[in-house]
Structure formats: structure tokens, C-alpha cells
């Protein structure tokens, strides 16, 4: 256990140091080593210009691409959200002011979608992270063929949403699905997983949990292996059992990692789209006959591409963006609190 931990921890730190220090050092060395022969010459001016401009040229591709495919659509969506735009009449936009937003706030479907996004987010994120922590703890023991176990953990993440959801849809089918068949042996009546309110939300969450637990477990595992072993040794000397070690050493040391996964999972949950869409089958963007698992993402898709009301869909997109900003702000506050308390 000790050796593997150190082996893994070491390259991580050197890799961290590498990108920041090396290029700058090399550049500095070259700058000092070959002073420009004649400060007024064309070549030396070019050289100085190269020194100043090249870094910008190197980072430019990202910003150009972000501008074209990120910022422009973002602003254009904001513009759309203030207009009445139909998919079939993109040329005929009429100014609507804040009507789309007002319409949204008074729509029962919007609040329903918001609520579903929240509940599905909670019942998928919480068990997922708890399970990931447990699995990571188990994988952290000395195991035979540990690489195999770790790779297997990651396979669900590598499968496509479509393939996974299709299989789950068949498992959850109310007539002849495997889950109802198993429930039948314990005397439970078949549950209509897709149309019942809590059943469908549970089913969608289970797909999310299945796909992401292994991914989070590997992140936790990596962080666990960076915890110095002497902490465990001294805890053991103080008479702490495995469970106490986990509670008093592992979890506190993992705090920053846990926070990171919470933030990432929250963002993922807010944008949940593929799983419920495909789970719903033919008219999946409705999220069930009573919109029982329609998330904000689905509602936006249904408004934009199902109904063709692009103005309202844009308003939903911007509302989602604002919600994410609020979530990020809350996360920031919590992080600061935690740091202070440490």
C-alpha cells in the first residue's frame, strides 16, 4: 500500500510543477543568451515583437473558438429571448421585451421542470457520491488485480448515454421488463416505471448513478492515494479502527476533492438532458405524460425544437444560465466557509 501510494503521488506533483515553470525558464535563458546584435535593426525589432506577441498568438485559438462558438451564441440567445421567434419564421422576429420571461415564470410547466431538475439532481447526486466514496475506499485496499477493478469501474462512464438508456428502458419496461419480473418474486405488483411520478424519477436517476459513480470513485481514489500514510499509522497507534480512520483521516483529507465533485455533479445535474429524453422514447422531450421527469433541459428542447418557439426556448436557456451562476455563487460561499473553519 505504501509504495503504490508514493509512486502515484510523486509523478502527480512533478507534473503539476512542469507546465508552469519550464517554458518561461527556457524562454528567459534564450533571451539572455543571445542579445540582439544591433538594437535598431529590422531583425531585432521583429525579434522583440515576436517575444511580445507570440504568447497571444498561441493562446488565441481558444479565445477565437470560444468567441465564435461560445460567446456569440450566448449573446445571440439573449437577443432571441427578447423576441418572438418561431422556428418556421426566423426572418420574422418581433420585439417582445421581457414577455418570454414573464410567460415562463407564470408557466406551470417551467416550475414543474425546475422542481424535477432539483429532485432528480438530489436523488442522483447524493447516492452517487456516497457510493463513489465507499467504492474508492474499498479499491484503496491492497487488492489482487487492482487495475482490472479500476478499469471496470470506469466502463459505465465510457458507454454512450444512448446505449445505456436503451438498456435501462428495457429493464424498466412495465410489461416484461426484468425489474418488474424480479419484483414479482417478492410479491410486488408491476410498477409502471415510466408513468409513475416517483418511479420515473428514480429510474432516470439510476441511469445517472450507474454512469457516473465509477468516474467519481476514480477521482476519490486518486485523492486518497495522495494522503500520507503516516497519518493512518499514527491513527492506528492511537487505536483507531478502519471505520474511524475513514471518518477522521480520509474524509477530512478529501474535503477539497469532495467539494470539486459536488460542484461538477451539480452542474451536470442542472443540465441533465440525454437520459430523460431517451428514457421517454418517442416523445421523450415531454418527460412523460404528466411531465413527471421533464427537466429544464428537456423543457427547453421541447419548446425550441418540438413546438418551434425559439424565443421562449432562449429565455429558458438564459434562465438556466442564471440558475447555474447562483449555484456557483452558493458553492463559492460554502467553500470559503469550509476553508475558514479548517
Amino acid at each position, binding site marked *: 500500500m505504501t509504495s503504490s501510494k508514493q509512486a502515484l503521488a510523486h509523478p502527480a506533483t512533478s507534473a503539476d510543477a512542469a507546465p508552469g515553470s519550464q517554458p518561461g525558464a527556457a524562454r528567459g535563458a534564450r533571451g539572455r543568451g543571445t542579445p540582439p546584435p544591433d538594437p535598431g535593426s529590422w531583425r531585432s525589432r521583429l525579434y522583440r515583437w515576436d517575444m511580445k506577441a507570440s504568447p497571444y498568438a498561441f493562446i488565441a485559438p481558444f479565445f477565437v473558438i470560444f468567441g465564435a462558438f461560445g460567446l456569440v451564441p450566448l449573446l445571440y440567445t439573449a437577443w432571441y429571448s427578447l423576441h418572438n421567434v418561431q422556428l418556421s419564421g426566423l426572418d420574422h422576429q418581433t420585439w417582445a421585451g421581457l414577455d418570454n420571461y414573464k410567460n415562463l415564470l407564470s408557466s406551470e410547466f417551467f416550475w414543474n421542470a425546475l422542481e424535477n431538475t432539483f429532485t432528480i439532481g438530489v436523488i442522483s447526486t447524493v447516492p452517487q457520491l456516497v457510493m463513489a466514496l465507499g467504492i474508492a475506499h474499498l479499491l484503496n485496499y491492497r487488492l489482487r488485480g487492482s487495475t482490472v477493478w479500476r478499469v471496470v469501474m470506469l466502463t459505465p462512464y465510457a458507454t454512450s448515454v444512448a446505449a445505456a438508456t436503451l438498456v435501462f428502458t428495457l429493464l424498466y419496461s*412495465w410489461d416484461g421488463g426484468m425489474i418488474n419480473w424480479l419484483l414479482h418474486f417478492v410479491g410486488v405488483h408491476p410498477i409502471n416505471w415510466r408513468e409513475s411520478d416517483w418511479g420515473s424519477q428514480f429510474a432516470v436517476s439510476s441511469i445517472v448513478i450507474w454512469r457516473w459513480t465509477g468516474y467519481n470513485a476514480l477521482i476519490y481514489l486518486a485523492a486518497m492515494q495522495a494522503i500520507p500514510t503516516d497519518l493512518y499509522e499514527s491513527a492506528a497507534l492511537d487505536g483507531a479502527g478502519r471505520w474511524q480512520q475513514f471518518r477522521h483521516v480520509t474524509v477530512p483529507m478529501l474535503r477539497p476533492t469532495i467539494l470539486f465533485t459536488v460542484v461538477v455533479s451539480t452542474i451536470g445535474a442542472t443540465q441533465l438532458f440525454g437520459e430523460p429524453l431517451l428514457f421517454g422514447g418517442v416523445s421523450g422531450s415531454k418527460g412523460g405524460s404528466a411531465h413527471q421527469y421533464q427537466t429544464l433541459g428537456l423543457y427547453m428542447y421541447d419548446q425550441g425544437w418540438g*413546438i418551434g418557439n425559439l424565443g421562449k426556448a432562449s429565455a429558458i436557456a438564459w434562465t438556466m444560465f442564471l440558475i447555474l451562476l447562483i449555484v456557483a455563487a452558493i458553492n463559492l460561499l460554502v467553500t470559503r466557509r469550509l476553508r475558514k473553519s479548517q
Partner: protein
Amino acid sequence: MRTSTRRSRRLGALAAVAALTTGLLAGCANDSNDGSSASGDGGGGGKGKTTLTIGTFGVFGYKQAGLYDEYMKLHPDISIKENVTTRTDVYWPKTLTRLQAGSGTDDIQAIEVGNITEAVQTQADKFVDLGKEVDKSQWLDWKTAQATTKDGKTIGLGTDIGPMAICYRKDLFEKAGLETDRTKLAAQWKGDWAKYVDLGKQYMKKAPSGTKFVDSASSVYNAALGGESERYYDKDGNVIWDKSTGVKKSWNAAMTVATSNMSAKLKQFDPTWDQGFAKGSFATVACPAWMMGYIQEKSGDAGKGKWDVAAAPTAANWGGSFIGVPTAGKHQKEAIALAKWLTAPEQQAKVFAKQASFPSTPAAYDSLKPAAATTSYFSDAPITQIFADSAKTIPVQNFGTKDQPIGTAITDVGILQVEQKGKSPDQGWNAAKAEIKDVLGQ
């Protein structure tokens, strides 16, 4: 000095790489061109070859019936490529945006009947007027009328239509002690879908275990509505869905199904529906002509000879498509010629022979021959005659711009809530109403 030589060398290398890449890319492009022309006409000619693209959704049967190969043989200077998007709800928004952007469209675009009014009312200037190119009397009047604007511009040529019949499992009917002869059955429910539903009640009294009378309430609704002239819109394009007699009648028939345990409660075109065919868990399904191939595929060999076809209670139409030529296309002349050829009676008959998609040109009806496999699969039923009889008496229906989303709201929200969540018909109706209000932005 050292740096400058290094730099110039680097520049040289860069230039070489750039030249190589462009050369390679150009080489690739040439290769693929040669490749396609070689496969098109066996390596001959190849100069000035035009590639026409055709955008479709689902299975149109042109490829399956070998029509593309046949056309390319007749016209060695043309090669055809089909771009298929399987789901209509993905295909149509994509096509709409491309039409309006004026770029990225295929030379020929298919349009589903549920979208044709929207296309006619909002996209007419983006399509070539095909009415001037063809003899419009070849098609059923109502079919051409659906694709024609108020000022007489025809933006699409009719491909198939969806005349309705009832496909039923003869073996299950026999076990339930019902009539199995197709003409006598048709006589029993003739004229009213309510009679068909009544037969379902009779079926359920002695139903073979694990089977239901019908796959879903929504399929009964769609089938019944397909025979009504009054749907969601009136002639002038006003929404009348909540006052429409057609909707009311079809809704009531569907509600009887949804509340009386005769439905297998499946959602059409879901994987579980496919399984239902394979397991034989329902005895009847309203089948427009295009669905016959589907049944054959999903029921598999186990269903061979057990399925039979009887005339539907009323002459009805469900589905069918058009193909149009966008003005943004680069090869309009060639595209028009291809569209004309593909929708001509002879070619429609060939598609029917392969895929059982029913022609929209009556001239084809006399020469129709279904594939031998299809005939024997459906107990040698006179499919051609049943569908032709239905096709000739289908009423003219008015469509509107939001036909498809309104239909989805009624079937996938209203009816589904009653059928699968145990809501009352009134609750289901109100849910559909709220949904449609949202659809129409009221």
C-alpha cells in the same frame, strides 16, 4: 545567426508540411470522386458528373426498391446520395433551419404530412413550384391540395399515403371465439370505430391469456381521426381542436379503450411495442399501408400466416409524405427531373411491391402487386384491393401549422394519462388542453 537559420529551416519544414497536407487533402477529394463515379456507372464516362442528395426520414423504400440504382443506370451522369435522419422530430427542425439559412439543404427534401401545412404556409418561397413541371391530375386531389398554396404553387410531389386497414391475429380471434373471416369482420364494425371497440369488449371476455385486443388507445385515436374531415384546424386555418367533432368522436373511442382493460398500454414505436409484436401480446392494430412492413419485421417468422387484414371501420388516412425541391439547391433542374421520376406511378408501384408504401397516384392502382412474402405473411389477404378501396374514399382533411405538436399533446399527454396513470377522461382532456395552450403560446 544560429536562431535565424533554425527559424528559416523551421519555416521550410512548415511550408513542406502545409504543401503535403493540402496535396493529400486534394488527393483524397480526387480519390473519393473517382470512387463514387466508378461505383455509379461501372467506371465509364465520369466527366461532369452531378451528385444529387435526397434528405429523408425513416424508410422511404427508394433504396430498398432499387430505384436509385435504376435511375443512375438511366442517367449515367447522375449519382444519388440519400441522407437519412431516422426521427422526424429531429429531421424537421433541422430542415426548417437549413431552408431559412438558404444553405445546407439537400437537392430534394422529404416533408411529412404533419408538417406539410407549415411548409406551405411559411416556407413556400423556399421551394420550387413543381406544379408547373408535372401533370397534377396523376395524384389524388386531396394529396396535391395539401402541398399547394392559396395562390396555386405546389411545393411538393406526393409520395405515399397511409390508407387504413385493421391487421388482426386470426389465431387469437379464433381462441377468443370471434369471427375470423375478413369480410364478415369488416361488416361487423363497418361505419363506426365504436363498433370496433365493442368487439374488443367481446374479445376480452374470452381473451387468450396474456393478450389484449389492441396495442394502445392512441393508435385507435389516430386511426379514427384519420377518417374525419374535421381535425384540429378549419379550412381558414383557425384552431378548432376543442370544438371539432372529429376529435370528439375519436377521443371517445380512445377513452373506451383506455378505461376498459382491452389495451396492451404500449407506446407506438417504442422498443416495448416491438416486443409486443414479437410476443403477440395484442390481437389487432390499426395498420396504415406503411405499417405492414413494420409488422412483418417485428413479428418475425412466428407471426407468418397468423396475421390477416380487414377493411377499417371508416376510410382513413394516417401518414404519408411529399418530396420537394429547395430553391437553395445547386442542381435544381436535375433534382426536379429526379423528383418527378421517383413519384411517377410506375415507381410508386415498385416501392409498394417492396415496402408496401401505398401510392398516391391512382394510375398505379391497377398494376399493384405486393411482394409474395407480404401476401403470404398476411394470410393471402387482398391487400391491394383493401387499401385501394380505402384510398379512393378518404375525405379531404384540413391541416394546420401546429398539427403535429397538437396531436402529440393529445396522444402522449391526454390519452396516456388516462391509459397509464389511471386519470379520468376529464382529467386527461384538461391536461391535453393545458398542453395545447402551451403549444399555441396562448
